[in-house]
């Protein structure tokens, strides 16, 4: 029992990212409202970002901005004192990509509504088969 608890505490971030990702994926597949699907898409993408940020975390380390960088030339910087910056960089790019996709998808949803006056997938399918 204590082993299991220790396992959960040691990796709970990873378990929870899996749960968030499943929520997002479920919303993308099973919901019929297009905007709900978009929310699912965004949750899905943030779950991945959470995963990356979790990789970068180090215990007993501080944020990746070097202290006293300009007046302590020659002072040794210990890698263990700072959090891994690389996943943060990657995720900045991923956030930008996700907001770009989100904007375009919203524009598409507005276009669809202009044309068909609905955002429900089943109603859209009915409208399409009528024409």
């Amino acid at each position, binding site marked *: 029992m204590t082993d299991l608890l220790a396992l959960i505490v040691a990796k709970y*971030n990873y378990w929870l990212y899996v749960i*968030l990702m499943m*929520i*997002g994926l479920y919303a993308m597949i099973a919901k019929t409202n297009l905007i709900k699907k978009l929310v699912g898409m965004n949750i899905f993408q943030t779950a991945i970002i959470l995963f990356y940020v979790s990789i970068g975390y180090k215990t007993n380390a501080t944020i990746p901005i070097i202290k006293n960088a300009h007046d302590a030339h020659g002072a040794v910087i210990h890698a263990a004192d700072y959090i891994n910056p690389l*996943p943060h960089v990657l995720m900045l790019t991923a956030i*930008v990509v996700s907001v770009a996709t989100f904007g375009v998808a919203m524009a598409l949803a507005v276009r669809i*509504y202009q044309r068909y006056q609905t955002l429900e997938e089943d109603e859209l399918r009915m409208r399409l088969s009528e024409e």
Partner: protein
Amino acid sequence: MHWPIDLIVLTFVIFCAIAAISVKDLLGTAILFGAYSFMMCLLWAVMGAVDVAFTEASVGAGVSTVFFVAAVFRTSRRTKD
């Protein structure tokens, strides 16, 4: 050790995520989605990813929510599920 904060925020995140996709009003979804993004941003700040948290605060909780509300304003609040 700040893992208790981390755990509490994570619970909130999952709560907001489930609420955002199950509320029957798209404007409500928009606001819950903003809350979700903000919680996520807190979580990343706790984990030391300040740049990512800053970006998420300005993009996810800020601009995305505004786009969302704008799109709901131009379409409809109605949703079946």
